């Protein structure tokens, strides 16, 4: 009998689909956190494959900060519709009321909109399992993160109480009130993600491709002036040919100058580039080991 050699992407895909199905089989009320980025796009695509011909049997949840790029909101609505899935959008009403924004409130912005917003949304709908698109290669702190990450009833990550994961066996049992965050693409690298998007023709936000965009430079970050809420202190936005390597709140996400207009060009640039991916995100510069701390507080 001839054997068929599986490629690395086929192996990764099979593993991710296995994880997605395992959660659906064992959790009572799962949800997929959808951030509209490239990792979310891959995770959603994998979910479509895992449950085809049924639509993925869980809703998508976008914990919205109201400060995402316009193009992200556009693709978000389209992607959910294409997948035949319910889209839940949650905005923390307290953050809304207090007008929390990235310009005036610094770390509080992420804290209230994302961390608190996520906890509130999970509680509101009673989700006991939430898929997230985090990858272990993103930084040192994530290299040791498990695929199934357990949270107490008040969403605390208890690093001393995580379970060993052997073979393809995931222990998803939990007490009432506890929940689990599940990362189906833990073992994918940034290059794997790009290659898979290329191979499978997955639609991603056009912001990943270079185009002339109105920008200003602040604290060494090239920021895009995406709408008129951006307070310009006498600055004149300059059209620059830029693209984004990661996507988040537009006032917190640095662009890179680039001419890469196609997917292969983006991948080429990524391979030839010499700085690591998360450099463009203001959130990680705050403090060393910041991810560890945020995770304990409930941020993804």
């Amino acid at each position, binding site marked *: 009998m001839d054997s068929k050699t599986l490629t690395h*992407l086929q192996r990764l895909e099979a593993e991710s689909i296995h994880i997605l199905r395992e959660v659906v089989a064992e959790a009572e009320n799962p949800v997929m956190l959808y951030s509209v980025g490239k990792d979310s796009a891959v995770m959603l695509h994998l979910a479509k494959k895992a449950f085809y011909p049924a639509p993925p049997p869980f809703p998508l949840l976008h914990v919205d900060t109201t400060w995402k790029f316009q193009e992200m909101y556009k693709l978000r609505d389209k992607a959910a519709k294409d997948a035949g899935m319910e889209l839940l959008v949650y905005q923390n009403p307290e953050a809304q009321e207090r007008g929390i924004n990235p310009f005036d409130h610094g770390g509080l912005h992420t804290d209230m909109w994302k961390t608190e917003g996520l906890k509130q949304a999970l509680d509101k709908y009673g989700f006991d399992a939430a898929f997230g698109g985090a990858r272990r290669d993103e930084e040192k702190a994530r290299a*040791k993160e498990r695929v199934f990450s357990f949270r107490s009833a008040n969403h605390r990550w208890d690093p001393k109480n995580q379970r*060993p994961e052997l073979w393809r066996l995931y222990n998803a049992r939990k007490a009432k009130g506890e929940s689990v965050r599940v990362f189906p693409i833990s073992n994918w690298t940034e290059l794997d993600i790009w290659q898979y998007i290329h191979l499978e023709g997955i639609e991603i936000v056009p912001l990943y491709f270079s185009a002339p965009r109105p920008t200003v430079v602040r604290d060494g970050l090239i920021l895009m002036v995406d709408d008129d809420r951006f307070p310009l202190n006498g600055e004149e936005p300059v059209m620059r040919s830029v693209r984004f390597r990661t996507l988040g709140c537009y006032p917190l996400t640095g662009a890179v100058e680039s001419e890469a207009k196609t997917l292969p060009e983006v991948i080429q640039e990524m391979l030839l580039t010499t700085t690591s991916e998360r450099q463009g995100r203001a959130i990680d510069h705050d403090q060393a080991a910041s991810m560890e701390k945020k995770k304990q507080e409930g941020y993804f």
Partner: protein
Amino acid sequence: MNTQDPIYKTDALIAENIEQYLETHQHKTMLRFITCGSVDDGKSTLIGRLLYDSKMIFEDQLATLEADSKRSGTQGEEIDFALLVDGLAAEREQGITIDVAYRFFTTEKRKFIVADTPGHEQYTRNMVTGASTADLAVILIDARKGILTQTRRHSYLVKLLGIRHVVLAVNKMDLVGYDQAVFDKIVADYTAFAAEIGIEEFTPIPISGFKGDNITGPSENTPWYDGVSLLPHLETVEVEDSREQAGPFRMQVQWVNRPNLDFRGFAGLVASGQVRPGDEVRVLPSGKTSTVARIVALEGDRDLAVAGESITLTLTDEIDCSRGQVISAAQAPLEVADQFESTIVWMDEQELLPGRAYWLKIGTQTVSATVAEPKYEVNVNTQEHLASKTLDLNAIGVANITLDREIPFAPYAENRDLGGFILIDKITNHTVAAGMINFALRRAQNIHWQATDIGRDHHAHMKHQKPAVVWLTGLSGSGKSTIANIVEKKLARMNRHTFLLDGDNVRHGLNKDLGFTEADRVENIRRVGEVAKLMTDAGLIVITAFISPFRSERDMVRGMMHPGEFLEIFVDTPLDVAESRDVKGLYAKARSGQLKNFTGIDSPYEHPEAPELRIDTTEMTPEEAADLIIARLIP
């Protein structure tokens, strides 16, 4: 620094023809490997070196690394690669459990996932976890030290977890002057040892992770070595596809896909073999046969699926098949059994309690299982067999396990997915152990349940009563025996056929071989449960008075009985009240340390969560309590 030609660093093709580069890279395979060794062996340095040489280090990381190397590195002005992957020390200080850190790098031919297990503490647990998914193991040896106890331990675990490819990386060759004699001696020593533990093949390579010798290509420092270098070996070692696909088709059903009445698909990951539409299959354990109709996929139906792929297939017949069952090649079905000999690696602070029921998850199925007292424990350093009554954290032992139903399986040596399992504590939900099925025990298959002509209904009918177990639980001195006595007397006056099983009395006979350790308490209750069950089959109303401090065991006994026949009565007396009564003088002994493992003093009592009845002895007399129980028993 004697850095090798950075042949893995950049690929000219990326700049020249990205499309062609992507095409090439889509055909890469994947290898998962584990590195075994301590920090002293240069493990972190080696992993850092691999990341560096395969260009997984970005400029910003390199700048940080250079700065860190000068500040806290151990290599003077040179780059300390270990700093790339360490950073676990601080976390360990914070008490964060790190079992395995996963690192990723890629070359032109392969993507690699490295399982890095830190430190000496918890080494067995961590290494077993990392090794469970590895195709290859790199066993690191410090050339200056040769084969150490830990080398034996690592090799034993590698063999135990069934890793088929072993690299013996003799590291720090630069510190022994690249001396061939040193290398040859270590290889000879290891050859003898490997044969002892059953490692048939291994690839020895003399390296220096620090200097880069024989990592990406041949080193001029070891002209006497004409074998393969480490990275080229990792790139070319045979991946598991052909072996996995050579066996008969098996797929554990993970999820039944039913979007509408016209479609019923069975989703799962193929554990072995290949499958095509038209193949005859058998569903286990039911044994029903059918034929594969379609292999359904988003991109269109497929004509072949192989081991390692997650698929959805449909059958031509409407047969029962649900999560946990195994679809298997019709001509080569799996074995089915409910008792096994298995090797168990204990991973929890709370030791194994033989006789206690745990959840056992194997593949996509979860069943209830009890583990017998280990046949022996294995000393991981010397592989000697030791007598043991339990298994503590990081202990490895061989024991029989009994399941509450039959499952399809394969020995672990044949297939990891069909023979590897985890044990889960039913109360804490912790993963407490990893296990590997060695073989099924024939015993169960030959003892069939004897169907008797006069059944339990008949017995009960003759006695004009409904059998039941009235299970009194509570602290010593809570009043269980007193109440139980009154209940039995009252029932006798009502012409009911009863039997009172008393804790102290049973320990004079049936259970006189048992003490008061947790394990013995579990076994004590299990036996009492079995006796009570036989008595209910005989039609009796059984009254028991046992402290029975653990929720798991009370639930286990409940599970043995017919639904509705088990009444858990919580005789609730506060500790200080029970202690002040101290009828038998036991509390005084326990307080003075003469009596060990005494419930409420130095051994826990787990309160019932939903007892059928709770008796507050501070608010009612034993007489009143007995009336309450009888009212519940005979409405």
